[in-house]
């Protein structure tokens, strides 16, 4: 009897518009009516699904244009995977970048907590509320208040409140965070699911773009708890916060966008102060940077000669060598040359402090302080462990964008290697080098080899194919004395000197001398002397 009653009641209860919305969901392409957010051609055919840019850095690239317009997207993630930040940022970016008001339906945290929590991300929700750009629908639990269930009910009031809030501020975006908590409060999961389904359909009918966040219990497992994905399954995004070698690594993955394209796979992202989520689209990077034939000086005339006339203006140069063999000095000379030509150089130092760097530079006759005062140099020293690698990347990118240097030096890349997993590091190097190349500036990246003589580092292995030029600095042990050798291993697009030359460092910098003509095995770390006669004999042999 009760069952029957319930059915008739729902039929009468639902407006035709809402049921209409349900039909669209089941038959998205065959539906004869016009759905908001779907592009139609002149004959009324569907040409594609429109997307709205979220404004979340990097995400719009991964999603190839943003979230499907007028639809609901499920954001699923474990606890601490930045779901709420995503939900808040979706609205915040809409307000900041597009002046699109948004409604935030909170099921878990009270609005007061959200206002406080996101202020450090640079979002003043309270002000937006006053300006009528943001409205909360507070569906968080009432503390200390219990309810008794006495008969049939539905969540019609919640839907009415959402509709009211959307109308009140003319919202274009809705975030619902996080839906799992409502299942904990109303024990009839089937009823709650049905009600949420109605809400999702109504949201679609209102023509607003919505995201719903949901809890997951495992990083790799079911999409979400309570079978939520079934009613908003058009679009699913998964946020992960994976523990890998004692380090947390955040990634996002677009699992599906029904009827529209997106980049596949997991992409690293980070949450940073005053910005929120920043995704790092790796496969979105295109190999289409222009190539310059203009040469710039390395700051050392002899080295320029070895490289066939200097570095190319938009190339990436890897300087590899053991500790103390002159990498930082070579970088300093490179920066000093920029200053001489009235260009700006950015030095990102991860190994030495400002004071150490400035003192050392003055030892080579380079005045960093003067250069900074002139505005031709910017030295940024950061401790590698201070941030995660994703954060470092974003900070470096930001400084480059602001300072607009002509030359960028990262000293050293290997110092950053220890704060991340190998995979994370590889992604960082690729993202950084491609960014530098896109700016069409020259970049010197230094890499420290583990062994004093010969050898390579992990950094070298990851980066060598991306770089245009590789310069090796190596110690050479000769007659009980450590000497230094330099060679240009690779110089893309140019002839270069194949010799391994000796160099020494004094108060005026680096001086490159003659080649080690009678020594073999320098790069492998086992220098062997051969007599002049032997060298001549070998030369004859291969004539």
């Amino acid at each position, binding site marked *: 009897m009760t069952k029957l009653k319930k059915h008739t*009641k729902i039929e009468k209860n639902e407006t035709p518009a809402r049921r209409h919305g349900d039909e669209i969901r089941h038959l998205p392409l065959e539906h004869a009516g016009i759905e908001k957010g779907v592009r139609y051609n002149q004959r009324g055919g569907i040409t594609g699904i429109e997307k709205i840019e979220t404004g979340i850095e990097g995400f719009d690239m991964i999603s190839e244009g943003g979230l499907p317009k007028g639809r609901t997207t499920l954001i699923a993630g474990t606890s601490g995977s930045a779901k709420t930040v995503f939900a808040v940022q979706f609205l915040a970016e809409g307000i900041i970048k597009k002046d699109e008001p948004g409604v935030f339906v909170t099921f878990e945290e009270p609005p007061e907590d959200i206002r406080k929590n996101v202020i450090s991300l640079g979002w003043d929700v309270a002000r937006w509320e006053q300006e009528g750009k943001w409205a909360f629908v*507070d569906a968080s639990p009432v503390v200390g208040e219990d309810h*008794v269930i*006495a008969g*049939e009910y539905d969540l*019609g009031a*919640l839907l009415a409140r959402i509709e009211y809030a959307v109308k009140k501020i003319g919202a274009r975006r809705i975030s619902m965070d996080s839906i799992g908590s409502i299942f904990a409060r109303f024990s009839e999961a089937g009823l709650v699911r049905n009600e949420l389904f109605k809400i999702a359909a109504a949201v679609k009918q209102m023509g607003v773009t919505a995201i719903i966040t949901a809890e997951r219990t495992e990083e790799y497992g079911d999409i979400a708890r309570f079978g939520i994905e079934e009613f908003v399954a058009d679009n699913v995004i998964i946020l992960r916060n994976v523990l890998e070698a004692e380090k947390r690594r955040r990634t996002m993955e677009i699992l599906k966008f029904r009827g529209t394209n997106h980049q596949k796979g997991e992409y690293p992202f980070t949450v940073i102060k005053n910005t929120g989520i920043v995704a790092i689209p790796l496969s979105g990077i295109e190999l289409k940077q222009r190539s310059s034939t203009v040469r710039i000086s390395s700051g050392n005339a002899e080295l320029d000669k070895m490289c066939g006339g200097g570095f190319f203006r938009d190339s990436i140069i890897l300087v590899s060598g053991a500790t103390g063999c002159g990498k930082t000095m070579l970088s300093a000379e490179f920066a000093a040359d920029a200053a001489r030509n009235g260009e700006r150089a950015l030095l990102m130092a991860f190994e030495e402090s400002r004071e150490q760097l400035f003192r050392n530079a003055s030892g080579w006759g380079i005045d960093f302080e003067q250069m900074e005062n002139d505005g031709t140099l910017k030295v940024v020293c950061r401790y590698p462990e201070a941030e995660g690698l994703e954060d470092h990347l974003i900070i470096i990118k930001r400084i480059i964008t602001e300072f607009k240097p002509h030359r960028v030096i990262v000293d050293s890349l290997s110092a950053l290697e220890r704060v991340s997993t190998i995979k994370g590091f590889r992604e960082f190097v690729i993202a950084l080098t491609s960014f530098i190349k896109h700016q069409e500036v020259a970049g010197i990246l230094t890499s420290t080899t583990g062994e004093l003589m010969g050898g390579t580092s992990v950094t070298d292995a990851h980066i060598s194919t991306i770089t245009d030029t590789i310069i090796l600095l190596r110690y050479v042990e000769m007659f009980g004395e450590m000497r230094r050798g330099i060679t240009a291993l690779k110089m893309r697009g140019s002839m270069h000197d194949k010799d391994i030359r000796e160099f020494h460092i004094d108060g005026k910098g680096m001086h490159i001398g003659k080649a080690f003509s009678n020594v073999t095995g320098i790069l492998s770390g086992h220098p062997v002397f051969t007599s002049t006669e032997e060298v001549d004999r070998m030369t004859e042999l291969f004539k």
Partner: protein
Amino acid sequence: MGKFKLRLYITGKTPKSERAITNLKELCEKELQGLYELSIIDVLESPQLAEDEKILATPTLIKDLPPPLKRIIGDLSNSDKVLLGLDLSPVLDHKERREDTP
């Protein structure tokens, strides 16, 4: 016994809403003998009031007075539960209680 102050939130004139109103009025007449003040709020007409009270489910009955504040959700067809919620608890025997829990 002090006077009861009750608010009933409904969403539109649905059968469920009507049932809740009828059930509540019957119960109040029987148990409270007119010693009550009842206001009915339609969420569709005054959504802000629902927002202020954080109403999610309808029908919801709120007992403001006498304290403590109580919320009863549903069409109030289960009068024992309603009485329990209004702190007018009838003595339930174990058999009945077991039938109530699904």
